[in-house]
């Protein structure tokens, strides 16, 4: 009797909360998402962050400018070279010294290699999140070659600390150019494989196309930068708009998409890999001669009094470094505007009305790195 009445009235479901994370494999680290659900439909996503907060900004207030560089490796560890570069460029601009052309070109090549390796890892992990473990192994196979290139020149595979204020730590290794050229030739044959494996796969397409649409207006108002914002048509590439290092002399396209769904965010990164390879190809054969460390930078760096800002394009978007200096050897206050933080908080907006499985796909294409969000 009761059951019949319930059917007559229409079955009422109750909304409930569920935690995704902090130990969920698809949150790529210790991130907790509180989901308000109706059945399997998402009503609200509340990100809870802070599990890997190391108070990097506060720590930097006691560090010298040389020491700050090595801490930035630990924010967005997949964009390590770019993070280093942001602090170094800020110090160089504040001191009004220039670096040699050689350093500029080396930095640009390193940044683009980092972007490639970051996107390779993202591609592998994205496939894994959607249940295709194969792609994970393929992505890591090609990333390994870049890691070896880094290891030979910089001495580390993840925490590089290769850029220093006024230059770079070591000159490039004699094998560097050959290795990079070999890698580009190798990866040009492997990148179409990525498309065969995942991009054209019918299951993958059905799970990503038309899911989690982010309009251009929303991308701008949420401050979504990087490939995530460019997939919605928001032109925000710092390399184009405020060129630094050697980006003003290379020819590359800013990848812009229109739809802003999960698939176009995926596609934007895939196309960006081709652009990165083209940038490296343009530079690798003509690295100019020059000193690798500017002699104008003293052992103890003191920035003049004032406020300074520098932004660079990391693999995830715009990283901004803002320093208030009181003229001593450490900053009075330093603030990192990290791309992951802004990008994460759009999740609630785009995930409403979709299923949990779609949320996993969206989170992958937003490409979050939790230490970058928490700092």
């Amino acid at each position: 009797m009761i059951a019949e009445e319930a059917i007559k009235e229409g079955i009422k479901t109750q909304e409930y909360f569920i935690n995704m994370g902090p130990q969920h494999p698809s949150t790529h680290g210790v991130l907790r998402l509180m989901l308000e659900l109706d059945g399997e439909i998402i009503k609200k996503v509340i990100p809870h962050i802070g599990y890997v907060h190391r108070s990097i900004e506060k720590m930097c207030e006691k560090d010298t400018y040389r020491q700050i560089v090595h801490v930035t490796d630990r924010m967005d560890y997949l964009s390590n070279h770019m993070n280093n570069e942001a602090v170094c460029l800020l110090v160089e601009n504040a001191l009004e010294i220039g670096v040699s052309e050689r350093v500029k070109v080396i930095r640009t090549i390193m940044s683009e290699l980092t972007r490639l390796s970051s996107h390779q890892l993202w591609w592998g992990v994205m496939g894994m999140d959607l249940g295709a473990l194969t792609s994970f192994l393929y992505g890591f196979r090609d990333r390994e070659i870049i890691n070896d290139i880094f290891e030979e020149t910089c001495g580390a595979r993840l925490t590089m600390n290769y850029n220093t204020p006024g230059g770079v730590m070591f000159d490039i290794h004699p094998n560097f150019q050959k290795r990079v050229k070999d890698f580009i030739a190798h990866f040009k044959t492997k990148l179409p494989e990525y498309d065969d494996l995942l991009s054209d796969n019918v299951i993958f397409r059905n799970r990503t196309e038309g899911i989690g649409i982010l309009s251009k207006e929303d991308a701008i108002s949420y401050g979504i930068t990087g490939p995530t914002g460019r997939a919605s048509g928001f032109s925000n590439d710092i390399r184009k708009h405020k060129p630094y290092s050697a980006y003003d002399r290379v020819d590359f396209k800013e990848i812009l998409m229109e739809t802003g769904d999960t698939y176009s965010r995926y596609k934007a990164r895939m196309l960006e890999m081709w652009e990165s390879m083209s940038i490296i190809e343009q530079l690798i054969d003509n690295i100019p001669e020059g000193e690798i460390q500017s002699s104008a930078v003293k052992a103890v760096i003191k920035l003049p009094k004032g406020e300074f800002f520098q932004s660079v394009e990391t693999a995830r978007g715009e990283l901004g470094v803002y320093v208030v200096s009181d003229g001593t050897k450490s900053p009075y206050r330093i603030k990192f505007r990290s791309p992951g933080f802004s990008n994460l908080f759009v999740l609630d907006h785009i995930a409403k009305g979709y299923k949990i499985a779609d949320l996993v796909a969206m989170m992958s294409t937003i490409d979050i790195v939790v230490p970058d969000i928490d700092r």
Partner: protein
Amino acid sequence: MNAITTYFKDIFHGIKTLLTGMKVTGYYFTHARKEIITQQYPENRDTLKMFDRFRGVVIMPHDENNEHSCTGCSACELACPNGSIEIMWERLADPETGKKKKVIEKHVYHHSMCTLCNLCIIACPTDAIKMGQSFEHATFDRKDLTMVLNKPGSKIRKGVEE
């Protein structure tokens, strides 16, 4: 009619894309020997060589006379971002001239705190320390990771201080 055509078209398209992907994995399955890139790590220990610049641990090279080139100037201690280096020095009389001078007593290095950032190596004016390439540092006791870099009985090489 149209709906049925689309239905079958979708199915065949789906199967085709799946086969395209399987062609890639199939290639690697049949060419496993040629395309293999992984290493058999603990087995290849004897032949495994790290890159020269690989940063594994801070070491202080000594020559055959048990001499090093550390003057005890503390530049590395100041450069270190996390206090991994502690320099203990004393003032001793020089046996020849009789003048008192600063001599390194212990160069204490806490490997457990070190982030391998290379800043101390760059800061050292006499190139007394450098990065070693060993990487198997797991121990059962945290104390083992605190090392004294200058060997017992060692002294500074002649001519370094000038």
